[in-house]
């Protein structure tokens, strides 16, 4: 399913922070987890994840360290910081307000579909 890129950009930060709040992770696993959480309906452009992670690191919302994968490759791991948890909590409140407003608007549209069709008719 195609999701508008502005929407992807807006939701990317809370998603990444939320996934890291579950525990330390690395790029590919984060991208995979986004797929799982959205039931495979949300697909990121994988390359874009890394500039985002670096931005979060610069803002000190996440910290990084180099480790080794099972296959013996070098792998960069990311963990959420205390500031990151605060930011996540704040984003969560903001999104709750947005989601709540959206839910009501969907409800209104469902309850009065006739009004819409009437106008188009």
């Amino acid at each position: 399913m195609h999701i508008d890129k502005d929407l992807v950009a807006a939701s990317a930060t809370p998603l990444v922070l939320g996934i890291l709040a579950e525990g330390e992770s690395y790029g590919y696993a984060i991208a995979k987890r986004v797929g799982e959480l959205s039931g495979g309906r949300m697909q990121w452009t994988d390359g874009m994840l890394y500039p985002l992670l670096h931005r979060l690191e610069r803002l000190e919302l996440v910290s990084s360290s180099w480790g080794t994968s099972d296959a013996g490759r070098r792998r960069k791991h990311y963990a959420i910081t205390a500031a990151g948890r605060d930011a996540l909590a704040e984003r969560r409140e903001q999104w709750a307000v947005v989601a709540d407003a959206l839910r009501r608007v969907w409800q209104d549209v469902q309850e009065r579909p006739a009004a819409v069709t009437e106008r188009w008719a």
Partner: protein
Amino acid sequence: MPGPRLEAQIDQWRAYVRRRQAISAADVEEMEDHLRAQVDDLAVTGLDEDEAFLVAVKRMGNLDAVSREFAREHSDRLWKQLVLVPEHPDAGGDGVGASRWRELAVVLALAVGAGLAVKVALGFVDGPGDEMVLARNASLLVLPFLAGYFAWKRRATLRVVAAVVAPAAVLAVVLNAYPFVPAGSTEVLAVLHAPVVGWTLVGVVYVAGRWRSDAGRMDFVRFTGELVVYVTLLALGGGVLVGLTAGIFGIVGIDLEPVLEDWILPVCVPGALVVAAWLVEAKKSVVENIAPVLTKVFTPLTVVMLLSVLPVLLGGGDLVAVDRGLLILMDAILVLVLCLLLYSISARDSLAPPGFFDVLQLVLVVAALAVDGVMLTAMLTRIAEFGLSPNKVAALGLNLVLLAHLVGAAWRALGFLRGRRGFASVERWQTRYLPAYGIWAAVVVVVFPPLFGFA
């Protein structure tokens, strides 16, 4: 276990990503890990390696867009940074770090050596006559250290060393054994021309003896241009530092000037030359050459300058009365025009078709020739009137050497613009002609003094 075909594909992808300036080596490594993990997962679902690789690369997204995102996050990476010595001794592997440190040690030792050579020579100076002796020998005191750096760096063969040391020895003997008349003009001319001879010899070491090679000569031209820029920058920085220090010492009542004259200038100026040479060598491939950029700015400005000078000269009245200093100024202008020409040629893609800038350059050369034609007429009438003197012959000779250079350049540039010949011939003319300056300088140093009775 990934097959060799996949490894080759990943190698190719890595090289492709690595070309983007905004994406660092660590980022590429991070993304490669992602790519490999993705390929592994896709392979489990039944895709073969080729398909899995294609899907994984596709999912990575448009690299231009990704690179733009990286650039937004790391804008500093778009500025090329010069790493002179690695921060970690083992960075880069293969002992690269250690050899960089060794080079730094050699450079510093040579820089200190050049400074001390001048300082020691200054110690022998006693009276104004000795000052001229020092001035004659200045290039012989400093340039060997610079040449030594390149001999070390290029692992010069014994033949190259001999080919440079022998003429340098002759130069040293001539400069010191000639019975120059005190304050005579042949001595001043020798002082002015000896560095050009010395620089030519440095060039032979720089190209490691391939002095017949056009490409080698052009490299030395590029090096010289960048060296001038870097020495200027070092001098500016050093001046600010000395000024601030002197200010502070002045406030507490200590005069820095004796120290400045006795130690800082004689030791630091020659040292700065060697250090600048090392900086230019190190930055060669990393940072854009600045000299050609300057030519782009100053070529149109110089055209305007020459075109405004021409009517002033023509309307200036009696050409015989023209000041002698004007001829020296003219030589300076011709040298400037030649440098502009040479440095833009040194940076030009020799396969590109003729463009607007090539036309502009031809205009520049023709304007310079016109101005020089007027001046030369003035000079010749002057010589006819007042006879020859060493200064006049030296200035006239340099003028003729420059003139031949410019005429040849104009002729070839015209041929290039009309599509009659390739750019390579324009370039070749420049590099082939360069030794003429070294030879002329050697003539002034070696032949002029006996010719004019050392006056």
